[in-house]
């Protein structure tokens, strides 16, 4: 049975890896969003070119902005971890990503029922 290490043991984790794993999770998610956005816009284009353009115009810039900001955020987090500084909440990142995903839904519902 696995047991927790006693608290007197030296720290068993590398702070840099935590940051790297989180950055990779962000990259996976943003890549999924990017691909899904293009694929959904392509499927929508057969029914309504206008909605397809909207689908690219709204979530795509948000996703590209997040991808662009991700590199500097990863570096900043790693520096904060190594210098034992408190991490800043990812409020702006999570809010932007949530709205980028949520924005797709009404456009797709419009495609379903309007066209």
């Amino acid at each position, binding site marked *: 049975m696995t047991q927790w290490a006693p608290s007197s043991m030296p*720290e068993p984790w590398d702070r840099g890896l935590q940051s790297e794993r989180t950055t990779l999770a962000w990259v996976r998610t943003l890549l999924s969003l990017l691909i899904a956005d293009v694929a959904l816009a392509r499927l929508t284009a057969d029914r309504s070119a206008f909605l397809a353009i909207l689908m690219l115009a709204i979530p795509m810039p948000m996703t590209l902005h997040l991808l662009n900001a991700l590199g500097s955020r990863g570096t900043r987090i790693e520096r904060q971890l190594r210098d034992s500084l*408190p991490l800043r909440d990812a409020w702006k990142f999570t809010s932007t990503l949530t709205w980028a*995903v949520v924005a797709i839904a009404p456009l797709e519902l419009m*495609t379903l029922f309007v066209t």
Partner: protein
Amino acid sequence: MRSAGTPGAVLGGAAERQNESVGGEAVEEEPDPRFSLANERTYLAWIRTALALIAAGVALDALAGRISEPARLTVSAALISVGALCALAAHSRWRRVQVALRCRRPLPLLRWSVALGYVIAVIGVVLIVFV
């Protein structure tokens, strides 16, 4: 006032960093960075689930030609709506967990994951019946 202590000296050691009020009473603590980052990764996993639900709804409508139109529209709309709700709920949960970590409170219970399982099961049954 925020004071940075020695994080990571022991498991959960970063939790020793404390934000203290003027009277010196601890009201909020800097959580272990591992927990904050794990919370963020869990949020991202939920967002990918939401995206998969939305994509499934659209793909069903576009590619499933053998299903009757009312059933196809209903199931597609349900999947897309559940996906959007899932994304909103994921963000709300990320925020609540972050607050709980900072205040060293127990993490809030996750009730809607069970509901999500039931919704997906019902959608599956509807698809089986109507195909």
